[in-house]
């Protein structure tokens, strides 16, 4: 029997965004269809609904628009996740809504993506949503971006039109300046040109098809492996009365949020500032000599320190920030606007603390990317810079250095609604060890 997977297969997470009717769902339908990931019963269901509502033409968008309200209104309301594989890679796709009122869901889909596909209708060119989605992709630290110039068939496959749109995008891209690589692909999602198979209509285009790019873009270095960060998630204490080794076992379970950890390495426990050494790195499958982000492990330390959920174990070089006064870019997601003085629960890593909004420093103008200073409030879907004070100091990094230790969400305390996604700015000063050389 032939073995199915002989080599490790990488996983690429990407999201698609664009304005209403730019053809996002159609594009995903096309990727699934042309990579033979659509099954016969799904196709039959599409054909049934095509006969009823579509005048006989199969609508690939119905593959992802799974909710009744979405099919009724012909728009994507919520993030839909799709899965497909080629012999080279596995893919998780977040199909995120284009409509302004659902921009918060774009943030959801983008937060875990390695790559962002921004769709543009070739007839309309760059519009406000294009700038918004590019900005959010940059703000959320997505390393790779693709501008898919769609509906090229409707502009007669004009190279001139393609270049014009690309130039318009390149005009504003330097202001974002966070992407590791940027690609422009002329395509037709509806007809399938340059999605999986190269188009005969674009002899002037020398780049890869969209799928070709998705299969080959370098993603191995997208995780932060520089500074060791371990938010303690769960204290593992079996407390077994009969087995003595288990009775005394005390491990700290969590997912490595950054860097590499090795047995014997010196570590610092924050915020207490106590130091110890890594005695063991345990997993269900046995002990490891070293582990790296984003592995989930259980750490055992040489010393019996008081450590609980919400603490962070870090390496002794490249120390994180430590402060109750923080500044962040936030994307506001609630009906009720954000104003100074309001209090929220703040989730960061494995801890939840109370936080108060001290001031609103700016609201970002999505057209110009310029900050407008001191707005009175941030409304739903606004992005701005805020200052917060937390009831307990946070141990954190700049979001641009670490997407896991640099991110927060705000939760509305009465309804428990998730009110904001926040990207922390770099700490003004890093953690200062006190007297540690004098401790015995």
């Amino acid at each position, binding site marked *: 029997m032939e073995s199915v997977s002989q080599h*490790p297969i990488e996983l690429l997470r990407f999201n698609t965004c664009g304005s209403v009717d730019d053809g996002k769902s159609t594009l995903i339908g096309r990727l699934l269809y042309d990579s033979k990931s659509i099954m016969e019963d799904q196709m039959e269901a599409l054909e049934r609904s095509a006969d009823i509502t579509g005048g006989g033409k199969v609508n690939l968008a119905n593959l992802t628009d799974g909710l009744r309200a979405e099919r009724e209104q012909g728009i994507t309301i919520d993030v839909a996740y799709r899965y497909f594989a080629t012999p080279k890679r596995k893919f998780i796709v977040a199909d995120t809504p284009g409509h302004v009122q659902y921009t918060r869901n774009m943030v959801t889909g983008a937060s875990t993506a390695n790559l962002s596909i921004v769709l543009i209708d070739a007839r309309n060119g760059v519009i406000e949503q294009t700038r918004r989605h590019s900005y959010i992709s940059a703000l959320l630290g997505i390393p790779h971006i693709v501008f898919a110039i769609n509906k090229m068939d409707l502009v007669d496959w004009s190279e001139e039109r393609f270049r014009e749109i690309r130039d318009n995008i390149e005009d504003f891209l330097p202001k974002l300046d966070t992407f590791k690589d940027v690609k422009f692909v002329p395509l037709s999602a509806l007809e399938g040109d340059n999605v999986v198979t190269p188009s005969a209509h674009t002899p002037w285009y020398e780049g890869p098809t969209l799928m070709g790019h998705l299969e080959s873009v370098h993603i191995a270095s997208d995780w932060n*492996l520089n500074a060791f960060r371990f938010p303690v998630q769960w204290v593992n204490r079996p*407390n077994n009365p009969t087995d003595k080794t288990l009775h005394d076992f005390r491990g700290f379970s969590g997912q490595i949020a950054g860097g590499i950890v090795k047995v014997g390495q010196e570590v610092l426990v924050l915020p207490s500032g106590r130091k110890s050494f890594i005695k063991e790195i345990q997993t269900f499958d046995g002990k490891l000599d070293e582990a790296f982000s984003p592995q989930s492990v259980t750490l055992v330390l040489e010393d019996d320190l008081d450590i609980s959920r919400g603490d962070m174990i870090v390496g002794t070089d490249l120390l994180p920030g430590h402060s109750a006064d923080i500044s962040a870019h936030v994307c506001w997601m609630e009906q009720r606007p954000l104003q100074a003085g309001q209090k929220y629960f703040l989730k960061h890593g494995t801890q939840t603390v109370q936080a108060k909004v001290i001031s609103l420093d700016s609201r970002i103008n999505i057209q110009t990317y310029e900050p407008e200073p001191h707005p009175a409030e941030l409304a739903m879907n606004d992005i701005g810079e805020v200052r917060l004070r937390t009831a307990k100091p946070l141990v954190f990094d700049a979001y641009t250095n670490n997407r896991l230790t640099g991110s927060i969400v705000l939760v509305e305390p009465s309804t428990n609604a998730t009110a904001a996604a926040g990207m922390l700015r770099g700490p003004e000063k890093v953690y200062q060890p006190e007297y540690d050389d004098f401790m015995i």
Partner: protein
Amino acid sequence: MSSYHLDHLEYLETEAIHVLREVAAEFERPVVLFSGGKDSICILRLAEKSFRPSDIPMPFLNVETGHEFPELIEFRDRRAEELGAKLIVRTVDEAVEKGLATPTPGQTSRNQLQIPVLLGAIDEFQFDCCIGGARRDEEKARAKERFFSFRDSFGQWDPKNQRPEIWNLYNGRLNPGENMRVFPLSNWTETDVWEYIQKENLEVPNIYFSHERECFFRGGQWLPVPPAHDGNGTPDPYEGARPTKDEENRTMTCRVRTIADMISTGMIESPAECIDEIIVEVAAARVTERGTRADDKASEAAMEDRKKAGYF
């Protein structure tokens, strides 16, 4: 270790372990829904990976329709015992007796009746979080699910108003009476599940492997012929679910691809006798896993409607 890089199964595993530990840390009375099916088998292994050497800090719950495959029940009980976990079983029959659930006349499938039984168990044990093995690739309403899926005090899912889920910061905050459903396998596909079962060398109930079984053809599917009823005065629990004279009836070499109960599970013709052969078969399959589930065929929005009412 030559490179600091996870392959796709390792990535999915660490993501699921993180989710399970968040549940253990943030909820007071979580429970794992364990049916004995392939997805929940993976959940149990992930729970071992999350919490050992400690005990798995949550009980297991199964809602029986009364039409289960006996092989599944045997496996479920044995696996729970091996893991030293407390297994809670609640049945549709009990719920009907207590008046919690009312069968629809003429409706043989008890799939819908599982909803009040599940909600009843949540209420009885005051569970604040139920962990399930549902995956987004199964069905298009499920494709919209969050890892942490909020249910109001009626157990309802509101797909148009879900909490944004950003990075790995799951908002599990609840007010009294509200409930969270958590799906650690959200990003797994059917192939991932089988590859994981293979990698971890996990036992699965033998009805997943090819065997001989008497089946009959109804509604486009081959359904298993239910066990014989001796008719000693009690009503036949499978009334309406037995082949009629007009329905084609034959012994097949078959297996299950997804398991509901005997009434809702279509058998697929298959020679696959081991996990390797199943993986090859799934990779070549031209219909979805849920294509063999009678309960999903009711309408295009069948799953969405059940989920809104409190179904898993």
